């Protein structure tokens, strides 16, 4: 289902993103394509190194945050809401250009402290069930939780189409639903904690090929 582009529902979002890429928007009346040109060449391999360090903000930003920064700074448009169809479509379209590229997050020394922060959060017990991410995704990844297999938490295909959601969703949404699952208060979308976790997971997946848009149960 994932490998066949005509039956992968994530490709519907990639098609939408392709249309948005060339659509002029904002006060500056510019489209993504006006600066970045053809995404097929300019965006190739980009998603494989996100979240990446942003010099102006002095912290790493995720791909959808980068898209919104581009919107506010260069297109002078309003940022797209988290998990909105347009934002997911754009990030799916951009990430799709990196399909097959090995993930290279973690090579930049500037993000090192944030990866450490992510690792600390990953091993931090939380919620009423008092479980850390590592208790399932490192210690028991070969087992099952109820009927569903526990994964190693390799974020290679985000944003991905989850059959349970019946739509595309970001890695942040996936992390938040895991936190709700252990009865913890989930971090807000775009919070530095979620970006640190994303960064840590991506650095763990260093070398694995990107597969956006992936399909998962």
């Amino acid at each position: 289902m994932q490998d066949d582009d005509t039956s992968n529902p994530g490709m519907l979002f990639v098609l939408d993103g392709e249309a948005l890429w060339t659509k002029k928007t904002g006060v500056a009346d510019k489209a993504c394509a006006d600066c970045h040109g053809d995404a097929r060449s300019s965006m190739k391999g980009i998603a494989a190194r996100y979240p990446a360090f942003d010099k102006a903000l002095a912290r790493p930003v995720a791909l959808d945050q980068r898209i919104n920064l581009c919107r506010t700074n260069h297109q002078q448009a309003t940022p797209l809401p988290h998990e909105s169809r347009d934002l997911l479509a754009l990030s799916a379209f951009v990430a799709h250009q990196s399909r097959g590229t090995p993930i290279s997050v973690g090579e930049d020394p500037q993000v090192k402290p944030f990866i450490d922060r992510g690792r600390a959060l990953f091993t931090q017990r939380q919620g009423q069930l008092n479980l850390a991410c590592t208790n399932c995704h490192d210690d028991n990844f070969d087992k099952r939780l109820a009927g569903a297999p526990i994964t190693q938490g390799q974020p290679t295909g985000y944003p991905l189409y989850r059959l349970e959601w019946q739509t595309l969703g970001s890695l942040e949404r996936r992390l938040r639903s895991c936190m709700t699952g252990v009865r913890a208060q989930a971090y807000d979308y775009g919070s530095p904690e979620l970006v640190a976790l994303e960064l840590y997971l991506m650095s763990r997946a260093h070398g694995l090929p990107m597969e956006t848009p992936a399909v998962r149960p």
Partner: protein
Amino acid sequence: MAALINVPAKARRGDIIEIRTLTSHIMETGFRHTVDGKLVPRDIITTFACRYNGTEVFRADLFPAIAANPYLSFFTVAKESGKLDFEWVGDNGYSSTASASIIVE
């Protein structure tokens, strides 16, 4: 709305061909409530039809239990070169079309 269509580009006359369609739609059931208790109104695709050079070869009725972004696959016999037209019709005046061409030798 975006649609993904898979029709073989070429076929031999008399061949049975598989046609796969995937379209973008939320397929809201009409049974769910918002957090403040309001019913979310039904918004689904109700019918799908495929015409092969103007002749209807496949039709389906869709219901609330069908998942978002409906995927339909069906078979027909390749008779002549031409065009396949697809049409999805749904609630709130929803209508979406797509087409694909096939060469029959």
